[in-house]
């Protein structure tokens, strides 16, 4: 037996034959850059999760400033506002996922999104929400950037130790800023 590098973080979480491709930060940056209608979904763990220089939420705000539309899930909205950042939208995670399965829907009504990036969402619920999109939103691609491999995404970071993840996140932000 082997343990595949990118095995689902939750051991029982093998969904079936189709699993996410493992993502390197370089590739992530490229995919984000070529996406035409990406959104970044920031979940309820954005506050308590730490990246190099503070909580994840501050980091996400920097992304938002780069022009990537940020959707704050309901429980995170207040924290964004507190920090003087107005997300592009705020919705319940379930509400958002449900609408994303409708290819005619988008945040601004200007055509379907093509890439959904997830950060700061509790593993078990994200896994299920990614499953919804995998099966029923074939028009878009999903990317999980938490440090835990999410097989139901199209692309996911592999399982990483905290420090490693922080480095990769910093590298990713840097790359995005550079280009």
């Amino acid at each position, binding site marked *: 037996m082997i343990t595949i590098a990118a095995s689902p973080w939750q051991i029982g979480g093998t*969904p*079936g034959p*189709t699993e996410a491709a493992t993502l390197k930060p370089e590739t992530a940056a490229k995919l984000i850059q070529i996406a035409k209608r990406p959104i970044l979904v920031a979940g309820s763990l954005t506050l308590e999760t730490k990246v190099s220089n503070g909580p994840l939420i501050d980091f996400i705000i920097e992304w938002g400033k780069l022009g990537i539309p940020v959707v704050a*899930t309901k429980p995170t909205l207040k924290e964004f506002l507190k920090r003087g950042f107005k997300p592009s939208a705020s919705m*319940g995670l*379930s509400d958002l996922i449900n609408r994303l399965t409708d290819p005619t829907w988008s945040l601004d009504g200007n055509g379907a999104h093509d890439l959904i990036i997830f950060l700061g969402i509790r593993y078990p619920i994200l896994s299920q929400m990614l499953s919804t999109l995998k*099966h029923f939103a074939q028009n878009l691609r999903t990317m999980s950037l938490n440090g835990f491999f999410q097989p139901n995404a199209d692309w996911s970071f592999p399982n990483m130790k905290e420090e490693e993840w922080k480095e990769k996140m910093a590298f990713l932000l840097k790359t995005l800023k550079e280009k």
Partner: protein
Amino acid sequence: MPLLRDKTTRVSIKKLEAGSAIIEGLEVVIGKIIEEEPWEPIGPTPMPSIATLRSWDFRLLQRYPPTYSPLCDMCCMCAIGKCDLTKMKKGGCGIDIRAHQAREILLRTTIGAAAHGKHARHLFEHISAKFGDDLSIDAGIEVEVEAPITRLVTGIKPKTLADFREVLEYIENQIASLLSATAMGQEGSYLDFESKAFHAGMIDNLALEVADLIQMSAYNFPRGEPDTPLIDIGAGTVNISKPLILSIGHNVSASIEIIDYLQRNDSMGSLEVTGLCCTAQDLARYSDQAKIIGPISRQLKFIRSGIADVIVTDEQCIHTNILQEAQEIKTPIIATSDQMCLGLPDMTEEPVENIVNALVTGQHPGVLILDHSKVGEVAVQTARMIAPIRKKYKAVPDAKTLIEFAEKCTDCERCRRNCPIDLPIDKAVYEARTGNLKKLVDIYDLCIGCGRCESECTPNIPIISLMEKAAEQKIKFEKYKIRAGRGIIKDTEIRKVGRPLVLGRIPGIIAFAGCPSYPRGGIEVAEMAEEYLKRKYIVVTTGCSAMSIAQYKNEEGKTLYEAYPGDFDAGCLANVGSCVSNAHVIGAAIKIANIFARRPLRANYEEIADYILNRIGAVVMLWGATSQKSLSIATGANRLGIPVVIGPQGARYRRMLLGRKEKRDKYMVYDARTGEQVFIGPAPEHLVYIAESKTEALVMGTKLCIKPNDTTMGRQIKLTHYIDIHKRYFGTIPDDVHLLVRSEADVPFTMKEEILSFLKEKKWQPNIIPDPTILKRMIRSRK
């Protein structure tokens, strides 16, 4: 159609002439007497079969279509499989993942209904044997409508135990029908699978009612009294110097025999009689001497403490590895149900002495006793005899041993990766090497006690025992109070709250039900309950949730049960009882439609559901979704139009029923006065919503209580809570207020300015308040 009822009255007839027939010397049991008493004309849907209420279901599903989150991309139900169904590929039987997920929901709701149906059946058989078929169904004083679900679904008004026989047969018949539809090559439409799942939910709820009414009647449980005794709950409440019997499961009839036996022998105080899960809740309804250890999440932990001298299992929610666990601590098991035989020798027919002897000597690690009346004596005698022998097992390993265990930890993370709720147990164990047990103590409260972490640990560290040890001091202070389950909601209470509820002045009923797979521990349920109590919602609770709520003290050091009264009224907290007592929560909604609004009840499902959907602000909170049973309870509520909010772990139930508030055409109702179609806003927005966090659930709860029928005064109050709580937790006014304001009079007074300007921004237009219905036939005058 006259309704037939089963009343097995036995009559001896010497000679009987009837028409041309002459019968002599015949003993007959009069089986079915054509209903005479004209209590209410029969409605359109007595004992509906699986397609009868399909059009109602389809109406709900049109507004709240299912959103699936497959837990598995494959299907393995028949020998053609596994079939990969990823992205709408079809399986070998032609099914796609949408229909298959719906089938999985049907299967699980049907399993839930079967578990409750069987629970009811077992109680029925035991109580029938013990008290006779003529036992009156007694739901207490101030209760005319004793069995709202039974009346609604079957058209039967039960007077004696025997009247439930036909109900049980109907339940079993429907369960077989529902299960059959899951077979390979049956149903092909996801909507029809969902309709059948609704049916399973309804059957489940019916079974709950049967079970609780007959046990209330037979065992003299509290019948709607709000001020039931305060019961000890928590591992810290037991006296470990006494022999201790621990009952686990849901069917209390075997455990009641223990109390009866002790009382007969006048020695109730000589033993600790304790319970876990719903059996505990129901034991406490029987005797205020019984103690409750806690919800299912405490099961393994408490067993590991070694304190139990005898474990009595009945059915449901029992750790299936319990025999091995009990052997570790040398505690014998008495299994009492054919639902869980554990491979044990069946000693039902043996004399008590032999059984006790086999258990005390360890000849068998446990026995199966299918005759409940024997269980009491066996359990008590075994406990007494074995307690001195197994003294040395009454403790978790000492701190030193545990640190030695922790030292084996390689920080491999695999325990966390196998934890269903992703608890950082790896770090907690790793840190315990240093003697710092704090993280373990923290996890003790969050942990659902499933044991999966241990199963994954290569160096075989007994992680749960570590937690138990780490929290040892804390556990000693786990002394809380829970109000014993009160059972049914009285007609008088319904009359009292009916008007304010329907008009909206009481902002809603919030029911905390279900299991303890909470994302962040039981404290969150308690916190939510407290918030709603402060806001004067009617808060009711059952089962494990009720126990979790008890294990929390407010600022004044009181449990919520001590701080709030147990009425079914605004700002009160009613522990209704065990899981089967959820029937009374759902029944209360039905009773409001019937008693307060005088809607015909008997076999009149659609109208009552339509009433609830459009008028009664009630929400079920399934914060720690786990078992198939809680899914089917919730699904039964759904069919009646009651929305359910599920905690994030419940995403593994794999489907939500979500509305989309921007789709105006989905939120239209008929105005029963005119037949006109009226937009009612997202009221309620969803039927099943999975909340990411406690705050989201709290806010969603307030919103889902909003109903089209609210008076302007009621809507003001509901909006006040919704907007206030939204602001508090999310920082803004909700972006859908304009959809929920029908006229300026709806606008909460205290927020007038802010909201009016928001409405303006949204180009809000006033709308009428209809007499709302989604049933065409309820329109009084057609246009």
